[in-house]
């Protein structure tokens, strides 16, 4: 574990890593933290700690202010244990996970599951309903058909896609909250893929746990795509997060001070394949059974990391009007969407603070 005395520069440096595709030279944020050292007047001054941990196919990290190394160690170790526990619960790569057991057995008969897993599935299917099916954790067979798992990308035939319709679709998953069971209608074999909401769910559980330990200032990241800020660094008003501008690489579109809230980003910059000069994205439109076209990046702020994680996909898939409806219906929820310039209005601001689209 690295640790730094509370010096603004060091910790800003660490945060620069959060969203990757830009260079620190573009901002000068050191002055934001000028007052931080002065306000740390506890008996034992707060020190800054940072640790990373591989999980859920990505790297989790925690930045935390604690009174000493052992306090930080405890909190961070418990937090990462919790992430590992949730990966054991929800991974679709591990046959021993509860989610895999459900995927395996729910076509035979209703599978009783524990309240936590059930709550996770309820929230995932809540977002399917709210987004008219744009968000759907049953799209696994599509990703497979398009070669996202092993083949490095392929374009399936129309008839192949149509044949997958029976294996995909959130409405085929039946949740019975009285019995706490999950079943797939018509004994259909299906797959549940936590990828678009599981990291957010894990972050929320860790946040609850850290609150329980009395942590007042910490920053959690699941691979940079789902972030949560507990409180703020001492003497500041929030944890700084920069949203890169995907249309003008190297530029920062928006700078947020995040506090007791989460921010999730969806983008096609990491999982995609290019064929005949065309970029195919790993985020699918369940209606067309095809990768979403024309969207570069979405960011969503919401008090719940589970929700912001799911919503970053919802606004990726849904058209702008429907997206706006979902986002603007709830106070505290904000979204910033970048689309490929030629197709639509390229920057869409939904309650986002400042004027992120102004310079775009």
């Amino acid at each position, binding site marked *: 574990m690295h640790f730094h005395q509370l010096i603004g520069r060091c910790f800003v440096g660490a945060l620069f890593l959060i969203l990757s595709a830009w260079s620190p030279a573009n901002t000068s944020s050191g002055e934001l933290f000028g007052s931080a050292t002065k306000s740390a007047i506890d008996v034992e001054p707060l020190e800054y700690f940072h640790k990373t941990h591989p999980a859920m196919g990505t790297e989790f990290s925690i930045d935390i202010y604690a009174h000493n190394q052992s306090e930080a160690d405890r909190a961070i*170790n418990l937090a990462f244990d919790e992430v590992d526990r949730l990966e*054991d619960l929800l991974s679709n790569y591990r*046959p*021993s*996970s*509860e989610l895999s057991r459900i995927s395996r057995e729910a076509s035979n008969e209703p599978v*009783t599951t524990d*309240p*936590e897993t059930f709550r996770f599935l309820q929230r995932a299917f809540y977002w399917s309903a709210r987004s008219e099916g744009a968000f759907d954790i049953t799209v696994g067979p599509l990703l497979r058909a398009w070669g996202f798992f092993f083949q490095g990308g392929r374009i399936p035939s129309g008839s192949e896609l149509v044949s997958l319709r029976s294996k995909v679709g959130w409405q085929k998953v039946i949740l019975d909250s009285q019995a706490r069971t999950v079943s797939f209608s018509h004994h259909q074999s299906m797959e549940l893929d936590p990828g678009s909401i599981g990291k957010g769910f894990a972050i929320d559980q860790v946040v609850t746990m850290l609150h329980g*330990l009395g942590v007042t200032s910490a920053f959690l990241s699941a691979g940079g795509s789902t972030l949560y800020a507990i409180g703020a660094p001492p003497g500041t008003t929030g944890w700084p997060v920069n949203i890169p501008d995907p249309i003008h690489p190297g530029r920062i579109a928006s700078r947020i001070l995040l506090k007791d809230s989460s921010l999730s980003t969806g983008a096609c910059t990491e999982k995609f394949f290019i064929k005949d000069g065309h970029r195919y994205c790993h985020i699918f439109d369940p209606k067309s059974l095809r990768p979403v076209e024309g969207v570069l990046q979405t960011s969503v702020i919401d008090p719940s990391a589970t929700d912001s994680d799911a919503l970053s996909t919802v606004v990726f898939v849904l058209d702008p009007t429907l997206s706006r409806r979902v986002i603007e219906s709830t106070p505290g929820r904000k979204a910033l969407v970048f689309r490929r310039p030629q197709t639509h209005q390229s920057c869409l601001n939904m309650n986002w603070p400042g004027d992120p689209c102004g310079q775009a």
Partner: protein
Amino acid sequence: MIDRRHFLQGLSATAIAADSLIGLGADADTPGLTQAEAEVAKQILPSKDSSPLHIGIIGPGSRGKELVRNFLRVPGIKIVAASDVYAPRFQELNDLCGYPVAALSDFRELCDRKDLDAIVVATPLGLHADHVLAALASGHAVYGEKTMAYTVDQARQIVSAVEAGKRLYQVGHQYRYSPWIRAAIARVQAGEIGTVTHIEGYWHRNNDWRRPVPDPSLERLINWRLYHQWSLGLLAELGSHHIDIANWVFGSTPITALASGSICRYHDGRETDDNVQAVLGYSDGRRFIFNSVTDNAKMGDQLWLYGNKGSLNLTLEDATFFYEPHQIERAKPSAHGEEKGVTTSASYRSSGEMPYRGPGRPVNVTTAEDPTTAATRAFIYCVRTSSRPIADVHVGLGSALAVVQSNQARLQKREIEVPPPSM
């Protein structure tokens, strides 16, 4: 192939007991192994019965809550009451269950309840016997966490209480229910790696083995693993699972124990060693060797079974076979009736020293579910059908005997005897 004596030795006592329970009898020619596997398969099958069943828990701490989470995956289960001496557990349990669970400060009150079908005991080791014996005495079926008891005497009392009272008891050795471990050991029992003479296991951590303590007065309650009063240290907490598997594979309990340990890394007031080593002696000179450290978790949990024809590697996730080079065989004349010339080469093969390089042959199972999920479901099956658990009281006794006596050997710094299971 192995002869019948060895074959039966290789069976766990429970597997044989299970045979008679399901009425298949002791037909000398029936392959008992298959029967045992059939019984396990039956117990861990997805449950179709969702009739309501009420469970109480003593000690819903970290393991207790994990057990509850797993019990709630079985249709019809409701957690209705809990007993703990640390009040925050009750709220944690309510949050986990999603409904209020009756909170009792005294475990005797829980045992006295008439609305329970089973009691789960997940308290610190030193308290197991008190809680398990009370739960059995009140007529309840019990799922008791490992290690079964803190002393040999207590372990025997639990066996007597189960047998005299015809009670149902399952011990928390959930790897007995792990699909890949069962499949792999069944193949070992059938002779796939020859005669197993040595088993080597290590289970490591890379942390101080402490839990956060909200108030210094709670240190011994929360970090009970570090103090003699309730804990037998790493031998019990991690070693007991491996010892159970060694007992299972060897088909018996050990007869001698030799052990050592020290506090090497964490000089923080703890009493139990932060690293331990044990050598358990079984009949015919067979050995199980265990090691556990807490400041390096490389390949954290590994179990190796060594037979004269090959080896089996067992982990928390998978099982892999490796095979010894074939023994010398009588050469057959070539098909053409004439020998071809041999081409010389200067290459050196290191395979004599490095026979295990390479991926090995993994054991494939279709239902690689979490062993605790399977074990808890099997327990409920036994409660509903009055069947005998796979991980029954004798399984519990076998590993408890070895753990307790290894710890004695560690304290006395000499080899000591492990008493036989039945006296």
